[in-house]
């Protein structure tokens, strides 16, 4: 745990942050420096000019926040000095496995990892039609829930295999047991659930820092959350009315309910307004399509396994945003180019987003979307219908791209829908373990936020903001008018 005498860095969000000598030396490694060349919000800076902050500052911020929470819990005797140090280190290192442009490139590798499960089929050709769609269509698919290629999985390999990191551990007498523990915390495999919740739950150090940092950098005010007040009101509770030995994080509901709600709303607005901004999404969709095309051309690392192989080499340090941009530049200069890919690559490099045609929007529970959303959504999902639209507007089907984005109003980290979860029975509570909890210091009971009758958000729980957007990869204004008209005529909306 750092003292006031320790070295410090100055951060745009948190001010002065003191570091232990071990943390300082980690930050000085090439491995950690790599995160300074990975923008936290991908290509959002094309729309929000200030959003150029990196995984480097975010990681330092996470370390600082988890340290503050841990020290607060230490006052109640829930954690000791070693726990605080290990949690800070886990916060600092949690993003060392991030990909170029953060989740933009990660999504491509997750898609590739997902497709690999076809090895379990005797005749994978039954899946052939799935991989033959236009690049932009495939890029618009939400990445599968596959975890194999996630940045967290890469972070484990990085921490265990990068010599500069290992040298720092050795220099400071940080034992292998402690390293394993830090890796387990990051990977969600620590057998004390409190550690997992501090690093990865619906109100963890990662989310607190990115809401504060992203909004500050983007220049929007949503992220002005009362973090110190929330931390002061955090406590550890035990599920099943205190009977379970598991420890989970809760917030004093009588004092900090609205501060917690404010944070959840801030996160919701950050997604709906900044991260899912129509032009940001359009550019990121193009970037994903470009990278997918480069993978198929054999011009970038083909898969997660290959990236793992280069982790211990110096070329891994260069696997950052510049790697992505350099590959795009190189492609532009190539003699042999695929026209479809060339157009996509140029759109990314020259900041020429796809043209935005229509947005359908609703706030509803799953399966309860109103007709004005559900009808066009179901119609636009069909590739045959996109071909009809293309015919109507003088385009080819691959030029029309449809993307659907759900933004959860009150995130639950749940394996069941929230309307099922809201039934007040014991079984339902088993499935929503990382949802925000409130502790009542008078009754000594812990409930979920969505069970609190005084909560503004309880009524919104389970609802998603659904955004369905149609873009076109054509600069001809005549086709835009025709396409808009065709969407209205064909869908009836």
């Amino acid at each position: 745990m750092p003292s006031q005498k320790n070295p410090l860095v100055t951060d745009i969000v948190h001010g002065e942050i003191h570091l232990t000598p071990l943390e300082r030396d980690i930050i000085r490694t090439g491995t950690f420096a790599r995160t300074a060349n990975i923008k936290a919000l991908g290509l959002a800076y094309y729309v929000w000019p200030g959003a150029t902050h990196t995984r480097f500052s975010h990681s330092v911020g996470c370390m600082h926040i988890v340290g503050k929470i841990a020290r607060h819990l230490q006052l109640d005797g829930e954690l000791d000095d070693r726990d605080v140090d290990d949690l800070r280190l886990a916060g600092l290192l949690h993003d060392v496995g991030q990909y170029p442009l953060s989740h933009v490139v990660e999504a491509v590798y997750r898609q590739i990892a997902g497709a690999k499960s076809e090895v379990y089929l005797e005749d994978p050709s039954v899946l052939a039609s799935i991989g033959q769609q236009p690049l932009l269509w495939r890029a618009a698919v939400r990445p599968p829930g596959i975890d194999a290629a996630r940045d967290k999985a890469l972070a484990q390999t990085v921490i265990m295999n990068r010599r500069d990191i290992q040298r720092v551990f050795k220099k400071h007498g940080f034992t292998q047991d402690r390293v394993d523990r830090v890796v387990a915390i990051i990977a969600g495999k620590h057998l004390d659930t409190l550690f997992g919740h501090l690093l990865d739950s619906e109100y963890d150090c990662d989310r607190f820092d990115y809401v504060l940092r992203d909004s500050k950098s983007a220049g929007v005010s949503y992220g002005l959350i009362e973090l110190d007040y929330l931390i002061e009101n955090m406590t550890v509770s035990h599920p099943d009315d205190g009977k379970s030995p598991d420890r989970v994080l809760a917030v004093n509901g009588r004092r900090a309910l609205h501060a917690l709600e404010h944070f959840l709303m801030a996160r919701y607005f950050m997604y709906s307004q900044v991260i899912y901004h129509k032009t940001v999404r359009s550019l990121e969709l193009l970037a994903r399509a470009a990278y997918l095309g480069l993978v198929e051309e054999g011009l970038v690392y083909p898969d997660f396994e290959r990236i793992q192989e280069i982790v211990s080499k110096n070329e891994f340090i260069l696997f950052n945003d510049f790697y992505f941009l350099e590959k795009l530049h190189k492609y532009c200069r190539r003699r042999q180019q695929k026209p479809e890919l060339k157009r996509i690559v140029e759109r990314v490099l020259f900041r020429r987003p796809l043209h935005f045609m229509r947005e359908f929007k609703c706030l509803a529970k799953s399966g309860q979307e109103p007709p004005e959303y559900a009808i066009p959504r179901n119609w636009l999902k069909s590739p045959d219908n996109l071909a009809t639209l293309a015919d109507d507007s003088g385009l080819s089907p691959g030029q029309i791209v449809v993307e659907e984005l759900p933004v959860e109003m009150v995130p639950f980290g749940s394996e069941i829908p929230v309307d099922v979860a809201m039934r007040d029975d014991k079984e339902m509570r088993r499935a929503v373990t990382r949802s925000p909890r409130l502790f009542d210091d008078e009754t000594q009971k812990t409930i979920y936020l969505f069970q609190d009758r005084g909560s503004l958000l309880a009524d919104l729980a389970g609802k998603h903001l659904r955004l369905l957007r149609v873009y076109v990869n054509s600069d001809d204004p005549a086709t835009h008018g025709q396409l808009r008209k065709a969407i209205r005529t064909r869908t009836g909306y």
Partner: protein
Amino acid sequence: MITKDLVVLSRFLAEVDGVCFDSLEGRIGFQKMVYLLQAAGIDLGYRFDWDVYGPYSRGLASNSVEYEAERERIDEIAERARLTEPARIACAKVKKAIEKPEAASRLTRTGWMELMCSLHFISEALKIDLSDTDSLASELTKRKPFFADHKREMEAAFKALREIVAA
């Protein structure tokens, strides 16, 4: 949109036991079934975190939403696919394991699956061999005391797990 991993997942689920998302038990069983398939050596790409009620994959939870949305079309393609022999053998092992044995009659089916998955997760996380049943039982009951008086069920779970992980 349909993705290859969802079609393959659908094929595996059909081979093991099918899946029903209408009930809570079905949803929890879905997570545990995929966990056990991976324990049997089928790498479907999911990583499970330790949570209050045992191993849990948020990635899988999110994929289940996608799966439900397109289930009819996904299942239709999956029906035309056939698993390789090693994959079918793994499915058969998991299918057998999730059939609750007589020794576990005091547990619900979900409870039985949770017991097996939790023991396996602890064994991997703490690097304790599955043959060291005393240590594993002790680690489990530290975290899930309600299993303390389920010695018979634990023995049955160890037996089932050893069959699942056997090459």
